[in-house]
Every structure is written in C-alpha cells, then in structure tokens.
C-alpha cells in the first residue's frame, strides 16, 4: 500500500521514544531514553553504529515487533502505535539479515513471488499462482542476472544466500510500500553477493523512489549509498549528515569516530 502523502509530511517521525528491556530486573537495559528521529519522503538513510547502539531496536520499533514504553511512532503522518506487526507490513517492507527470513524455503520461486503479488488482498480460495502473470514474474527476476527466470519451479530452499536475498528484496518491494527497511541485509553474504545485492538495492530504491532506512556494518556501503548518514551510539544519534554535509565523512573518518567513542566507553 502506497498512500498519497502531502510533501511536507515526514515519512517517519519518532518522538521522545523510551524503551527499556527487562525492566526492574538484573538484566535491565535502557536502549532509548528520549530518542527522536525524522525521516523525510524519498530519503535513503544509512545507519551505522556499534553493537548495542540501538539500531535493531529502532527498526523493531518501526516495524512493530517491539513496542515503545513511551513516545510515539508516526509513519506517513499517522500514528502506528496501535497497529500490529502484520498490519504495518502492509506499508512497511523489511529485508532481514538472515536470507531465510524473507522467502519461504518449501515453496517454489514462482509460488513465493505469486503470494507476495497478492499482498494487501485477501488470501482465499483463488488460484494461488496466476499463470497469466508468469511472464511478468519472469521479466521481474530476469534483470537480476542470476538465471532464476528459467528455474521458476525450483524450491527457494535450494538457492544460495545471495540469490535468496535478491529475491527477498524483489518480493518485499513488489507491491507499493511507503517505507523500505533493510536490516543488515548484506551482512550474511559473501563479498561478491553483497555487492550484487547492494547494486540491486540501489536500483530498486531509485526506480520506485522508496524512502529507505538501511542498517549496515559495512562502512563503505554506508558512505557510498544513500543521501543521509546516521551514526548511533548508546541510543542516541551522534552523527547526522544529510546531503552536502555527508561528503565530510569518509570511511576513515567514520572509523576514527568509532574508535574515539569506544575509547570513551572504555573497551
């Protein structure tokens, strides 16, 4: 579902978010205490940060797999706090680090695509795979250059991680969405596959003009892709460089900041 949104409304607005895991126990851990973030329509935001800096929690709060203790999450000008994860999935697409999560191993490539094609409509007793759409689906996977168009009846479980991730990305951007979330989606792939998937990401995002939030551990990807760079540390944004200012941050510069922060914390 892609809705018409007035141009001056931000795609994402998180205001004064508080989140503490395991409150009142020995494992109590406060991730966010008054975190705020605004993402504008058409932004491609790269988020970096050390482990435990709150990146994944940020994504989980947006997608609804974790609820905030306090504060409000707005997507496209509407508060989504009351929507469950599956309800938000209708306008938020997410690609996970684990290639197994975005596709269904037991079903064929064709069945995976056909099911996703029906997203937003009811899943009743209609024919699962619409044969008339077969050529459309083939044309969709052909530009990947992976040869999947000739193996549409192959179970997805027998594909490589890179192939599955490329397919997962296609599937989740197939129906119109407001927001694309990439959760370290190249981290589990070998260097060549991760390049391929990153190129595909760039192409899809440009083509569909998607507002995108990408979390990555790959500093080079973070610098080369997107128009805005965020560095998070202990639940706060420590670097926020958009458009022209982004040029100030090279991979080396980012590494230097990383080390500085780590020294401060004492590890």
């Amino acid at each position, binding site marked *: 579902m892609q809705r018409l949104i007035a141009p001056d409304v931000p795609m994402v607005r998180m205001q004064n978010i508080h989140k503490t895991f395991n409150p009142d126990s020995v494992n109590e851990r406060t991730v966010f205490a008054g975190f705020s973030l605004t993402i504008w329509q058409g932004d491609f935001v790269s988020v970096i940060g050390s482990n435990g800096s709150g990146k994944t929690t940020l994504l989980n709060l947006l997608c609804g797999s974790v609820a905030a203790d306090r504060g409000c999450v707005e997507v496209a000008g509407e508060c989504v706090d009351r929507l*469950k*994860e*599956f*309800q938000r*999935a*209708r306008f938020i*697409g*997410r690609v*996970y680090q684990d290639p*197994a*999560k*975005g*596709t*269904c*191993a*037991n*079903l064929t490539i064709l*069945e995976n695509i*056909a*099911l*996703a094609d*029906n*997203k*937003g409509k*009811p*899943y*009743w*007793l*209609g*024919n*699962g*795979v619409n044969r008339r759409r077969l050529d459309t689906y083939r044309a969709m996977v052909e530009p990947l250059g992976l040869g999947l168009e000739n193996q549409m009846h192959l179970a997805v479980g027998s594909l490589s991680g890179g192939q599955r991730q490329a397919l997962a990305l296609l*599937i*989740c951007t197939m129906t119109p969405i407001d927001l694309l979330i990439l959760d370290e989606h190249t981290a589990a792939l070998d260097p060549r596959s991760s390049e391929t998937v990153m190129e595909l990401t760039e192409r899809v995002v440009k083509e569909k003009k998607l507002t995108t939030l990408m979390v990555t551990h790959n500093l080079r990807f973070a610098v080369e892709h997107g128009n805005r760079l965020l560095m998070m540390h202990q639940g706060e944004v420590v670097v926020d460089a958009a458009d022209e200012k982004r040029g100030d941050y090279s991979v080396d510069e980012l590494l230097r900041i990383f080390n500085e922060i780590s020294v401060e914390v004492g590890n």
Partner: protein
Amino acid sequence: MDVILRLFVNVLEEGFIYGIMAMGVYITYSVLHFPDLSVDGTFPLGACVTAALILAGVHPVIALGCAFFCGCAAGAVTGFLHVKLRISDLLSGILVMTGLWSVNLVVLGGRAVAPFYNKPTLFSTGLVKLLPQGLYLRRVLIVLFLTVVMVKLIADLYYRTKSGLLLRAAGDNDQYVTAQGVDPGRMKMLGLMLGNGLAALSGSVLAQQAESASVSSGTGMVVMGLASVIIGTSLLRGFRFLKPTTMVIVGSVLYKAALVAAMQLGLPTNYLKLLMAVLFVTALVTGNALDGRRKQSAKAYRA
C-alpha cells in the same frame, strides 16, 4: 486364499478410513509443525455427531458435512487456546481432547456407545444401490475408495489456492506470512481447523461403516495418524511425482497392513496399542536415519 483376500480388503478399507485422518494430521504435523493431540478427541467427535444425526434421521452425507464442521470448531478451540491464550501447543491439544470426552458423551445422550444398525449410511443409500450384484458385495471398499480419493483431490486443489500456499508458508516461515500483511496466528488456526475437520470426517466414515459410534474410539488416533504420515512420507520420498496426500494414504494402508500381519502371526489383541507405539517409533527412527543419509549425500553432491 479366501481368508487372505478378506484380510487384504480389510486392510484397504481401514487404511482408507484412517487415511482421511492422516491427511488431517499431515496438515498440523508436517505443514504447520504443530503436534496436535486434539485429534484423539475430534475423531470420536465426528463419529458421535454422525451417530446422533443418523439416529435423528438426517441424511448420511449431511452427517458427514456436519462432522467435518464440528471437527473444525474443535480445532478452532485448540487454535484459540494456543494462539490467543498462549498455552503451549501440546497442552492446548490435551485440554481440547480431555474436554471433548464429555462433549462426546453428551452428544451420544449419556451413552458410551451408540449403535444405529440398519439405518441408512453412506454404504446403503444413494448411488450405491445401483451397483450391479457383483460389485455390490464390495460396496464398502468401493465407497471408501471413492471417498478417500475425493478428499485427496480436494486437499490437493486446496494446497494450490492462495490460502493453501500461505498455509504452507506459515509452517515454514512465520515472518514471511507477517510480511504479506497476514497474521500468522490466523493461519495456524485455519490449519488446525482443517486438520481436525478431516479427523472428524474420518471418524464419521468409520461410524457409518461400523453402524455404531463409540466415545472411546479416539484412543491412539494421534499415534496412528502420525505413524501413517511418517511411514508414507519417508518411504515414498523418492517418488517425486507423488503428492504428499497420496503418500499419507499409502502410509496409512501400510501401517494397517503391519498391524494385521502382526495379529495374524499370533500377537494377542491386548498388545495392539503397544505394537502401534513400537511401530511408530520404528518408523520415526528409520525415517530420521534415511533423512540424515539423504542430507549427507546431498551435501557431498553439492561439495
């Protein structure tokens, strides 16, 4: 010779009846990975509902349909306990199975057994009467065969619908279902409803064949259903062209054959349930072993 033929027909008949239930168990156990024990209660539920309806003069085919819907309702309760009230999968099944015991007694009007001899059943009404004399003697086998094939074909068709594909996805990857904007809990509930509906349907067919329903006919049904599924899917895995529904029905027939063979070799009837359990373990272990070997050779092939 005559004895062997009769045994053979007997094995086929029972294999077909329990094959319907095995198709249901396949949905919960293999598709959803849900160990559903409520089948022990929904199988006799189907039988009891059928007996009550036929005694009340309802057409046997309508009784079949009602049994299926009652099974679905019981499955929905299991799903509700597990999905909404967050009770563990095994416990949800046990609770429903236990509760159904009383429900079944109430359905039969307080009796444990309800015979309905000489009332119309699937095997004595409708087109069956038009069968020529020679085939009429084998009418039970013919009707059972047609019933099981019909259920199988409908199940196969269902697996290819949007709902069926998403159900298969739900057992495999919850997250994928969520990503399509559907609540995975709802799919789980749907699977449990269909699985238990088929179990009740199977109970209804058994009751009509025996012309009697018994509250205790459900004991051991989970084990029997699971054994059929595991025997069928692990023995016939090599045959790629076979649909899982076919494998499961063949598994059910083979399982019955093994039981009958043991009885013929002189095993006392009291040991029947023990044998069922032992056969189940054997099937499970050999199935796992075969699976492991296949995976190893597949790995070697890829490397």
